[in-house]
């Protein structure tokens, strides 16, 4: 298979209530494509966490999903503040989310760790003041 199927989403940073919508759409697409339920779940959860992160910390960004029969790649890109200490950010329970968001039940410090847990590979490229790009891949086992 040469060219991957690409889905592009703009994640609106000003509208917290719409956070997570891209992930729901991707879930529907993957279902139509006939991926196994556990693959769909892993993609949907890691994408959901990433989307929420972009809305909370970076004022939104873009999400691109590239689908091939053997792998699904999710690229999340924002022009937010960047991550100061990636190692610290990867620790479960560490969070810099504001109280306003925590009161809604977000900001538990599980976003990035969950994204790593549910994907086979995760690369974080970040620069302070410039933004963050996260590339995640989920491998599809041969049936």
């Amino acid at each position, binding site marked *: 298979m040469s060219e991957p199927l690409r889905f592009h989403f703009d994640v609106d940073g000003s509208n917290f209530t719409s956070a997570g919508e891209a992930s729901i759409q991707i*879930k*529907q697409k993957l279902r*139509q*494509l006939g991926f196994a339920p556990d693959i769909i779940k892993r993609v949907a959860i890691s994408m959901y966490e990433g989307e929420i992160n972009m809305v909370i910390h970076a004022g939104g960004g873009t999400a691109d999903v590239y*689908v091939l029969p053997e792998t699904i790649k999710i690229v999340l890109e924002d022009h937010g503040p960047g991550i100061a200490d990636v190692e610290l950010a990867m620790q479960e329970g560490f969070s810099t989310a504001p109280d306003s968001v925590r009161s809604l039940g977000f900001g538990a410090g599980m976003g990035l760790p969950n994204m790593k847990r549910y994907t086979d590979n995760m690369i974080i490229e970040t620069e302070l003041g410039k933004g963050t790009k996260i590339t995640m891949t989920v491998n599809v086992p041969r049936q």
Partner: protein
Amino acid sequence: MAEYKHSVALDIEKCKGCTTCLKRCPTEAIRIRNGHAEINSMRCIDCGECIRLCPYKAKKAISDKLDSIKNYKYKIALPPPSLYGQFDGLEDVDYVLQGLLDIGFDDVFEVARAAELVSGYTRHFLNNPGIKKPVISSACPVIVRLISLRFPFLCENVMPLLPPMEIAGMLAKKQAMEKHPELKESDIATCFISPCPAKVSYVKNNFSQTTYVDCIVSMNEVFFPLLAAMKKIKNPQPVSRSGIIGISWASTGGEASAIFNDKYLAADGIENVMKVLDNIDNGSFPELEFIELNACHGGCVGGVLTVENPYIAKARLQTLRRYLPVSQNWNYNKDKDNKYVPDDYKIPNELQYCPVSQLAENTNEAIKKMADIQKVLERLPGIDCGSCGSPNCQAFAYDVVKGEADENECIVKMRERIKELLAEEKEREKTESVGGQKTE
């Protein structure tokens, strides 16, 4: 799986091919082809939304006629609590029950009684360690089917307990055989008075493997003969044994509040329900024990086969249940195992996921098709007008790639083509007339 028997059907004569149902069908199961609506039976969940909306009354619910059980020796009516909310100024449930006996039933068994037992065993079920939470109610057949078609990971969350309608049928038959030992099981017919077409589908398609309901009639068909019979009654027999819990099942929140635990959610309206399910599926939910979902606004009182406005019916039920005991059917016994659920209350098989929207068997091919859909979609206007007969441009692109529709059917594109042709025509006339002058 055997072919699915739907209880929503179309009267082609009456259908004008308008886009009302097309655009509002929650599962995009409808297309307008050859001037009238067509329902895709794989996708339809029998929610009844199209029956509710059709301005020409072309959508109908299929149900049994009362006559269909006239040859049985012993006929038992199974009235659900939503039926009690249909009557203005009703002081006591007994008037309804006596009315049912007067229109020809030999016995009555209230579904509200069974609902109280289901509530009791739901509380027991929730005490079991290791079950997947939140537990989702299995009472609304639309929800059960929706989950089986779209939510593979939530199939396990659906409570493996029979709905009150089935339990009522089971207990009614048992009770009849105890009261009348001369009766054989084949002499008895139970008849549920349904507020919705989905319950009909539940029984006709054996959602719970075996069914204890032999006949399902529509509530709005029974309403008028019943009303006439009720007007004649002076003093009904005091036979009702419903409590507050049983009657409350008729509207949203009734079932959920009966788990006696504040960790529950109750939602109604198919569009709200789908959002809730998407959220649970994503794990973005507070910790909950129990989820009650009803396809109809207001709960069963909002069923499309009811007579009264759901909110009025609900208000009436509040009056009706006011001086009733909390429950008249559940025996709370402290010594008994509080996790116990009897086997005959359980649905024998776990809910199976059966996807419908898959583009192709093979992922490679599906990806190719999806890419084609995207290409078609880019050429479409994106105004989701529905004139092509598909509910929106996305669905139309899907239909084009599947070979079920022709891209040229898009009215907006057609208009553009006509404009182009007209411009070409004008241009041609111009040059022809200029050319004509020259030759003169």
